[in-house]
């Protein structure tokens, strides 16, 4: 449910680091709380985002939630699949349902995120 190789934010987003590129999505807890995801609004690649700043919106049938970036930097890629098929966020939140990739400005930002065990403890 909460892979050990990811870092987590209290807003229920996850980060997977590849070099200085952070792949970002929402956790199983988030997608299950939302229910069926029907709309994802993401910024254009090339946009800058601050750590813990809003970068988009995710909507279920009933509700709208803001998306907050766990790390700051330049958005280098957005996942077009979530625009065409928002249900991938429910189906594979840690895989094909990723949302954005950010070139991390400062690696020390990761220290402010949680590991899997710490994140899971916040859910109880």
């Amino acid at each position, binding site marked *: 449910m909460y892979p050990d190789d990811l870092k987590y934010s209290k807003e229920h987003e996850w980060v997977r680091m590849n070099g200085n590129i952070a792949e970002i999505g929402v956790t199983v807890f988030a997608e299950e709380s939302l229910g069926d995801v029907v709309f994802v609004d993401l910024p254009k690649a090339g946009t800058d985002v601050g750590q813990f700043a809003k970068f988009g919106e995710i909507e279920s049938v009933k509700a*709208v939630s803001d998306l907050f970036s766990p790390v700051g930097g330049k958005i280098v890629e957005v996942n077009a699949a979530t625009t065409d098929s928002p249900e991938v966020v429910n189906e594979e939140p840690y895989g094909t349902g990723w949302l954005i990739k950010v070139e991390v400005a400062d690696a020390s930002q990761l220290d402010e995120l949680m590991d899997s065990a710490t994140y899971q403890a916040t859910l109880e």
Partner: protein
Amino acid sequence: MLSDKSQDQILKKTVLHSTHVESNAKMVPFVGWDMPVQYADGIISEINAVRNMAGIFDVSHMGRLEFKGEGAQLFLSSFLSANILALKIGRGKYNFICNEDGGIIDDAMVYRTGDQSFLLVINAGNADIDMEWINPLVAKSTGFNMNVVTKETAMIAIQGPKAVGIVDSLSNGEASNIRRFRIGNATVAGIMATLARTGYTGEDGFEITVSADQGEKLWQTLRESGAIESGLGARDVLRLEAGLPLHGNDLSTETNPFEAGFGRFAYYEAPNSIAGAALRRISETETDRALVGFKMTGRGIPRSGLNICESNLGNNDESNVIGRVTSGTYSPTVDGGIGMGYVDQKYSATGTKIIIDVRGRPVEAEIVDMPFYKRI
């Protein structure tokens, strides 16, 4: 993304509450009741079940009032906007409870269950307000008894293209003798039941009332017969797809039946009608605004409370506002964003392009005829 779980208020429970919890329904507070918003497979799956097969809904939280006696008919005609004096035995009518100004206190279904007996079904969220309106009227009248039977009965709606067949198979074919917008009694799965061939989804089906202690058995039997448990989330989308208004969103005391486009359900000729004079006056004048349906043509989902703007300017400036969204959602049946809202009368024509201000983002939409979905 967290839902607020700190509920100080003690929530009411229907007799099916533990059944929903055992089915892993997501329970949420809804107008003072702890109700299932969805079950394990999710809202979209439930919507598809109702559109393609049959779904069941626990609607036991809705207010149910029985009126019996020789004076019942005349009494109901004083505060309901249906022509009660002409309502035949076994028939139901959609109607409004309006105040002296024609404002809508609630919308309701009234059924004539016998020569001198009637059933009135009101919104759960308005039950207290309705009773504050109705009780003083009852106190001034004679010749009938009013009984609130919400707690002693359970009400289950079964809706969808297979709904009538399922209930037929459990009632030796008695159910389908009851035609659309009619009400009758039948034995369903061995249970004495009152069946109203009405609903809130745009599909054929029944709203079945049984004594509270039989609710669980009826629910399980309908499930075993293939009906899919469906929650309030699906119900809200289904009713919007069917172009049916929700009081509190699309209707309120600040709106009247004519601007909402439901003037045909606002009969005002009853001699003792409390709202009659106001409704007649409103019917004779052009309303300033109209409730319209619209479909998103740009990327976005409309939500209640968002501003509707004039389209030619192509922006969502404050000075450009021509109305407000009262209901909106993503519709899996239409595969897009749909909504209802009030707009200035001159922008209400079908085909008019509008802009929805989606939290600061202008998104294009177009006014369309309702319903968005039609089977019946």
